[in-house]
Structures are given as structure tokens and as C-alpha cells.
């Protein structure tokens, strides 16, 4: 390969266009190298943001061939071999307002983040002059979520956010809420968690894009599961998401398998389920569901229930 063609989405505040730049191929370079070389040698008007060059500041995230990456951390060779091409398309992060070229506006995101009180609400176990003591075990609870560098990759990849900017919080905001909610020094976890519940917590698609693309490998999906559990422990079970999750738990305990006929009833209640009658008839007509079918318990259901008892005991201990 002699050259790499970089096709970059440009935006000058008014109009958008794609512009191509040819770079000589050099082994072992990063995306950020390519962008810097273009700006320094080919086009000084190309605008992008970058700071530390060491995957710490999070400012250089961009999309390449439809996927968000941290530019300073991502090898150009990796992308060229992944997409089997010498032509790469650069675009600004998705789900952000674009300021110019590849630079996005973080201000609205930071405003949104304030919802979850992304700061420590100190407990009485410490103070400014004496500090706080934290066990190694408690520190490990926050060591991964505090790795977040606010690069915005997770937000760019979030499927729910792409369809719903107003009623859903960005994954990095959920991470921030989690980070303080599980901090042993924080006195008010509910103050971080409740705003998440009120802003579409259960609307997550479970697509795993955030956890798959995070350059810091933060397990955002498990953090979200924790947040959902926490809301239920706060007594917030009268919503579709919580009822849906409980329907699975109950069905497996009762019969071992999901009952797809009763699932909408358990999730949405009787009145809402009535609005699904046309949908149900559509399925019945094709033989996809049988409303009169009562699933039998699986072989070994007593054993399954013993596992439930054991798990319950572990939860309480």
C-alpha cells in the first residue's frame, strides 16, 4: 500500500461537504497522526481537537468508517486491515452537536451531566481536613468507572441516544452516576441514581455498543444493570422495565421458561395489553402464539428453585 485516502466530513458552521486527502502510507501510525499530518502539511483549515496524545484527555475521539475511536490510541494499520481498504472516512462523533469539522460541542453534555450530581456528596466518615479512609475493596469498586476520560465514544455509539436525545442520558453520564453511587465515601447514592431513572434508564437497548467501543474497557453494561437493580432496591418497581425484568425472574422460577403470552400482561398491565390485541391476532393467525397454551415446568424445576433459594441467601448474606 502506497497511500491512504482520508475522506473527511467538513463543516464550516453553515455547509457540510466531504473532502479527500491523500497521505503516504507509513507503518505503525495512529489516526491522530493522519489528522495532524493533513493539518500541518496539506490543509491548515482542517479542524479537530486533541490534547494529550496518550489516551488520557479524551479530546480526540472521531468516527472512522462509521465507528467511534479515540484517535491517539487507534492504530491506522488496525483500521486499514479491519476494513480491508486504503480509503477511510472520518466524521465527527455521532449524537453530538458539531462546531466545526471534527470538533463537537461538549457544553450541552456537561449541562445534562449535572442532572446526576457528578460530584461526591460526602458522608460523615470524613472531612476536608482529615480526608476519608477507603478500603482496597471499596476502592476497586470505583477504579474502573473513574477510568472514564469523557471521550464521548460511548455516546456516539449509543443506539437509544441516536433516536432519543431528549429523554435519555449519555452512557458516560450513567457511568458518572454509577461511579459516585458506589463510592463508599458518598452519603447519598439515590441522588445520583434517581435522575437516571427519571431520564429513561430502562430505555437502554442492551446492544452492548458502549461496552464494546469504550477505549478504557469500562463495563458500562454491567454498570447499567447495577443502576437498574439499585432503582428496584429503592422501591421503584412500578415501571415497564422493572416489571419486564421481574417477569423473566418469576417465569424461570415457576416453569423454567419464559411465557411469551403472559409477558406483555406482566410488563404493561391489563389495560395497556388490550391495545396490543391487533398485534396478538396477527401472531395467532400465523400460529406464532397460542393464547391457550400453558407451558409445563421443565424437568428439574425443583432444582432450579433450589438455585433461586441459594442465590437469595447469597444476596441477603
Amino acid at each position, binding site marked *: 500500500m502506497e497511500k491512504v485516502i482520508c475522506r473527511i466530513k467538513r463543516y464550516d458552521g453553515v455547509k457540510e461537504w466531504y473532502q479527500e486527502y491523500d497521505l503516504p502510507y507509513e507503518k505503525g501510525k495512529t489516526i491522530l497522526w493522519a489528522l495532524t499530518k493533513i493539518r500541518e502539511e496539506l490543509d491548515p483549515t482542517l479542524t479537530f481537537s486533541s490534547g494529550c496524545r496518550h489516551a488520557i484527555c479524551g479530546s480526540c475521539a472521531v468516527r472512522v468508517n462509521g*465507528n467511534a475511536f479515540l484517535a491517539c490510541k487507534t492504530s491506522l494499520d488496525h483500521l486499514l486491515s*479491519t*476494513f*480491508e481498504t486504503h480509503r477511510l472516512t472520518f466524521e465527527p462523533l455521532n449524537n453530538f452537536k458539531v462546531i466545526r469539522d471534527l470538533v463537537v460541542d461538549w457544553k450541552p453534555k456537561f449541562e445534562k451531566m449535572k442532572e446526576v450530581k457528578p460530584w461526591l456528596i460526602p458522608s460523615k466518615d470524613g472531612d476536608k481536613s482529615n480526608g476519608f479512609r477507603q478500603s482496597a475493596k471499596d476502592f476497586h469498586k470505583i477504579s474502573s468507572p473513574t477510568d472514564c476520560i469523557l471521550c464521548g465514544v460511548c455516546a456516539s455509539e449509543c*443506539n*437509544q441516544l441516536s*433516536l*432519543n436525545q431528549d429523554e435519555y442520558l449519555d452512557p458516560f453520564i450513567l457511568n458518572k452516576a454509577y461511579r459516585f453511587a458506589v463510592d463508599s465515601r458518598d452519603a447519598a447514592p439515590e441522588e445520583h441514581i434517581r435522575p437516571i431513572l427519571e431520564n*429513561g434508564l*430502562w*430505555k437502554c*437497548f*442492551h*446492544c*452492548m*455498543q458502549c*461496552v*464494546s467501543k469504550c477505549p478504557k*474497557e469500562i463495563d458500562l453494561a*454491567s454498570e447499567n*444493570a447495577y443502576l*437498574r*437493580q439499585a432503582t*428496584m432496591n429503592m422501591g421503584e418497581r412500578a*415501571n*415497564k*422495565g*422493572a416489571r*419486564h*425484568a421481574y417477569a*423473566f*425472574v418469576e*417465569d*424461570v422460577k415457576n416453569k*423454567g*421458561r*419464559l411465557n*411469551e403470552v403472559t409477558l406483555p400482561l406482566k410488563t*404493561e398491565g391489563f389495560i395497556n395489553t388490550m391495545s396490543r390485541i391487533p*398485534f396478538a391476532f*396477527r*401472531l395467532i393467525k*400465523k*400460529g*406464532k*402464539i397460542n393464547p391457550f*397454551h400453558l407451558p409445563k415446568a*421443565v*424437568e*428439574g*424445576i425443583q*432444582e*432450579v428453585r*433450589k*438455585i*433461586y433459594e*441459594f*442465590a437469595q441467601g*447469597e*444476596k441477603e448474606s
Partner: protein
Amino acid sequence: MRYGFFPGCTLESAAKELMLSTKKVASALGIELVELKGWTCCGASHIQDVDDFLATSINARNIALAEQLNAPLLTVCNTCTLMLRTAKQKLDQNDELKAKVNQGLDKIGLQYKGTIEVTHFLWVLIKDYGLSRLKKKVKRPLEGLKIANFYGCHILQPPHIMGFENHLNPKAMEMVAEVLGAESVEFDQRLACCGFHAVFPAEKEVMKLTGINCLSSKKAGADCIVTPCPLCQMQLDMYQPDAQKDVREDITIPVLHLPQLVGLALGFEPNELGIQRHIVDAIPLLKKRLVLV
């Protein structure tokens, strides 16, 4: 070739045609599927929202049942694969958790050992069975059939748990399609999410996504969508009339399960593969493209 078979709940209810087609195709290929006795729901990405230890434990039981068969565990559902592999990875990487889960399993005479793999039908076709062997079994090449391969998130992501192929640019579906003689179309939503897991709490967004996914496939010139996941199939097929309500253009496109596509190439008739059970009728299209009677 012998596998412990984990059908997953949908194959016993809304996706019975996938049970039918999987068994027919496996039998025709000489793949022995031994259904696990007493398997339970994998949790479908929801049980961990209530109790993650419980979610791991029930899947440890499922895997332990397959270990008794001493055969790899095969699924035909992306989410079942992800849930089982997630439990397996947690148990294999955390001795403390494994010991605790085994305390529970011990009460019912089972032990999770970590001796078998959890795999998906798509991966088995490529890795275990082999594409050249599959090609030799093709009786009715699917020439003239243009398909949109819709992977579904959970067969690819997260890569540290799934990891069969590069999650940013997978090829498995296209490789199988090519061997069967079908033509794969390029479309924007090839690796998109179907939204199935949030269809109740986020119905508005999920319907919009269904419209986008169907329209993208259709505009790319596909005759039908093919997916290795029954949940994606249900979302894109069963909810298509609902998704249509908010889209001005016609989004109608049939959606097939992967084993149904393989079955057609092996010479089975659409009705033998349960294709008549889909909400969007695929049979007129198949008759036209594959010159069926």
C-alpha cells in the same frame, strides 16, 4: 458431530419455525443435536437487572447440563449465546465466583467445570462443519436471491466475550450466503441493533429503528433480510406492520432465519422450513427467485 442443543424460549413459542428448520438442516448436514433436558431460559439479558448472581447461576446450571453430555453447547439465538458465554467467562475467570456458584449447584448434584464451549449455529457452519463441506450439500443454489445479512448485536458484541470474528467488519454471514449461492447486498444497517430488548419501555424508538432497518435493506436492493437471531427476526418481522405506520415509504420486506436460508439451499421447500409462519409473507418472493413450484 454432536452438540448439546440449547433452543432458547422463543423456539418453543413464537419462533417454532426456527426449531423446525434448525432440526431439519442439522439432520440433513449430519449434525447431531441433543437437546439439553431441563434447560431453562438464559435470562434474555434481563435477569441480571434483578440479580446478577442468579443470572450467572442459572446459566452455570445450563452449561453444567451440557458438560454432562460432554458435548459443546450449540444455540441458534444471539442473546442466548451471549448470556451463556458471559456466565462461562465470569466463572472461568473468577475462581471465587465459580466456587460460590458451585456451592449452589452442589445442592442439586451438579458442578460447573468449564470443560465445554458455547457456540452458535453460524459459527459451527464455518468453524466446525466447514464451508467447502456445506457447499457440497447444496442441492438448490440460491442464485438470483439478494439478501441483507442482519447480524444482530449479541453475536458480535462485546468482542471480549463473543470474539468469533472482528466485530467491526464481520464476514460470517456473507461467507455462508456465498456458499449457498445467494448474493449479499451492502446496506447501512448491516450491523445495527434491532431494539428487541427494549420494545416495551422504548416502543417509540424501537419502532423507528425497525423502520430504518427494513428500509435500509430494501433500498439496498435486498429481496429479504436474513438473521442468525430469532429476536432480531421477531422484531423485524412481527412488528413490521407497526413500524410501517410512521414511515411514508413502503418498508415491507420478508425476514428469514439463517437455518431457513440454509434449508432452502439444501433443497427443502419453504413450508418444510416453516417459512409460511412469518408475518411478512416470503413465499411469493422465494417462488419467483428460486423458481419453486
